[in-house]
């Protein structure tokens, strides 16, 4: 029942044989050894499994891998060097255990691509679908603001 799915993964053309029930997070983990997107709540509510599909953030634990056929998939592992968002997360100490961090990084990138100068209220609302049990939220807000400043320069 497996079928071939071709997509671009972090800029590289790839192919995988996937079963109909398999999610994109599972395929990235099992076929490509990418662990940055993580299934946590399993219901698309916590954001730990965030991935970008054609530039739009999706919950990778609910997104069936077959739907990625022909798509552009990006994970936190993309890029050889730290970008402004990752630098800002480090500089503002915007994580503790780090398990939710890739999801926050990807959502922040999407936020800043849409809105280069978000207000605090906009940041809170945009990232409200990402949960951090360590509650590094105040530092995350500061990191997003710093990343926005870095990117505007």
């Amino acid at each position: 029942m497996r079928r071939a799915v071709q997509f671009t993964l972090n800029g590289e053309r790839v192919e995988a044989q996937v079963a109909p029930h398999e999610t994109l997070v599972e395929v990235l983990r099992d076929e490509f050894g990418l662990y940055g997107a993580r299934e946590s709540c399993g219901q698309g509510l916590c954001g730990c499994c965030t991935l970008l599909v054609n530039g739009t953030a999706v919950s990778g634990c609910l997104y069936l891998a077959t739907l990625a056929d022909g798509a552009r998939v990006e994970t936190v592992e993309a890029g050889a060097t730290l970008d402004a968002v990752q630098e800002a997360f480090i500089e503002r100490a915007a994580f503790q255990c780090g398990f939710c961090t890739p999801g926050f990084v990807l959502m922040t990138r999407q936020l800043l691509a849409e809105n280069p100068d978000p207000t605090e209220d906009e940041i809170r609302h945009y990232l409200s679908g990402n949960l951090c049990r360590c509650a590094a939220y105040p530092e995350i807000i500061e990191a997003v603001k710093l990343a926005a400043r870095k990117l505007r320069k």
Partner: protein
Amino acid sequence: MKRATQPTETSQIGRSVPRLESWLKVTGRAEYVHNLRLPGMLYGKIFRSTVAHGRLKRIDTSAARAMPGVHSVVTGAEVKTVVPDPYYGPAFHDQPVLALDKVRYVGEPVAVVLASDPHVAEEAVHLISAEYEELPAVYDEVEAVSSKAIVHDALKPAGTFPDLKHLKGVKNTNVALDFRLRRGDAAKAMARAERVFEHRFRTQQVMHTPLEPMVSVAESTEDSLTIHTASQSPSFVRIEIARLLGWPENRVRVRVPFVGGGFGAKLYIKLEALVAVLTLLVHRPVKVSLSMEEQFFTITKHASTFRIKSGVARDGRLVARECEVWWNGGAYADIGPRVTQKSGFTAPGPYDVQDVAIDSYAMYTNLPPAGALRGFGIPQLVWAYESHTDMIARELGIDPVEFRRKNLLREGRPQATGTVVRDAAIGKVLERASELIDWGKPFDRGSGAVRRGRGIAIGFKACIANTTSLAAVQVNADGSGTVYVSTVDMGQGSDTAMAQIAAEVLRLPAEAITVVHSDTDVTPFDMATLGSRSLFHTGNAVRLAAEDARAQLEALRKELGLPADCPVADIFKKKYGMRAGSVTGVGNFIPPYTPPDADGQTDNATPFWMVGASAVEVEVDTETGRVRVTRLVNVADVGTPINPRVVETQLSGASIMQLGFTLFEKMLFDGEGQLRNASLAEYKIPGLLDVPGELVNQAVTSEQRTGPFGAKGVGETGTFGVSPAIANAVHDAVGVRITELPLSAEAVFRALHAK
């Protein structure tokens, strides 16, 4: 990233070093057991009890075994072929690896399906059926005292703790510890008091919900076992698994990489005994990863009931206090009896009361087990005593801060145990919190439907004793340093703090130090990463180990006749004729402790005191009952901060977590003990929109003289005062008093309407 190894004169203490693992975490490369896959590995999925209390009559696994792709199905009977007496636990040997004769809560593991494909294993779980002879169940911690429903046929203390020995073999009871403290004569003092106040408070059962759900992997050879586990207590896991199997400790290796949040959930044995038995049965690596839902059936925070009674003299001084606390431990004791005692003795709060009586009961019930959750029982106690304190002050017409000030336990005064309080900045913390919230200054109290109020609360905690930590510090041939500890970095920043402590002694930048993660084959014993003990205990051990390494280097330098300013690399080069060698220093730290007598009295109850206060401003919508915290101030005595930034984020994170436990988190059970909201869809945890607009976190200037460079633990302190501060503010805003957590909109609405 470049890592300097050049010596530095800059102090590494008080430096906000970015976490050493920052790059790994922002790039998604940090190692978690969640990521681990081993060749030939099988996945285990758990079949769980559907009744709260019952004798297990029959399990039918035939359909599951017959399903294509299923490797095997394991029940309690198979477990016994590997471990004849498969009961584990830190305080009682009461918890079976898989249910045997009885089940004691809904969700208890009964059988496991193993398959190469986790989806197959999960589907096969649904093909298993079990029959139970249902028994009467008990859910309430106070009812459990007199209930005819008895959770365990006979009590089985582990033998670790002297105060549990008298419970061995006791039948017909649900009391897993009856801690008692008597100082002076509370009844007599109460009778003499001008006014007497008595209230009853309750807290609800909640769950830690670490975002990396509990996960363990085990692999075995014919005479060795390796367990990779998201655990806060690798040393305990090794000892307990070795005990269960009857193996030498060196045949059991426990590895812990980074842990994706713990908060007390990942302590002692969770999945480790299960995966160990499974791999020994099937001779293949086995992984068990829980879903978020399953975490709720594994470990929780104690619900509690606290009856507190105080006598107050004419001058407003507290002269007597009686505390009776019942802890809902669920079906297995886990560390509940220690919560009952170690937190129990602080139940009268940080107040100077001459005559005190405390009774604190660890109760078995037919609910998921309860253990430690960020505060080890303290938040439940502070909730009660600080609500009570506020109620007394308001009743007496005394300003709540002034009333506390009048009664605070000051430096050099004995606490309820008789232990004299040292290095606890209780007064300072209270004053700073009240300053930061502008206590006593006018503010907009709102009008119409929205009303505002302020509240404050202060709590304190003793650190668990008697516990030990060991550390090794290796100085390499180039002068760089490596720290070996079994402390687990689950997000609290211990790797970075330990590196800073070692670096300070070795006069290196913290970035020149690496910290080897817990591996019981490599890193020395550590009691566990819990109760804010690691910075103090392991930190002291690291300091001693680094000093030992430094002394060895110094001796070597003198022996070789090298000058005092000689670089470390040159010492090794001269000694070995090339770049080679290393020195390893060891540190063994165990602080002094005196066990309490029959009245709970001791001259040394704790290695240090933690002090935390919170002050809040809230808005209450009187039409909906919704409470919104607009300002939250957290102040703590953390001794001398090793890493001020990490300290601040620990206080902040702890307080936001406690905000969830205060306003909305609650495990909801139906009349049959079935949990109704075991998912993040129905059990809401704080998100960005719940964070107060103004959030201030401060550590007061203080020093823990026995701590490493004056420091002490901080992981839990931010939780202490949050709940009662909010309840006190709600009362200040709208005049209703909520005595049971959470302060949900519904609870506040009902109270407003009952007024």
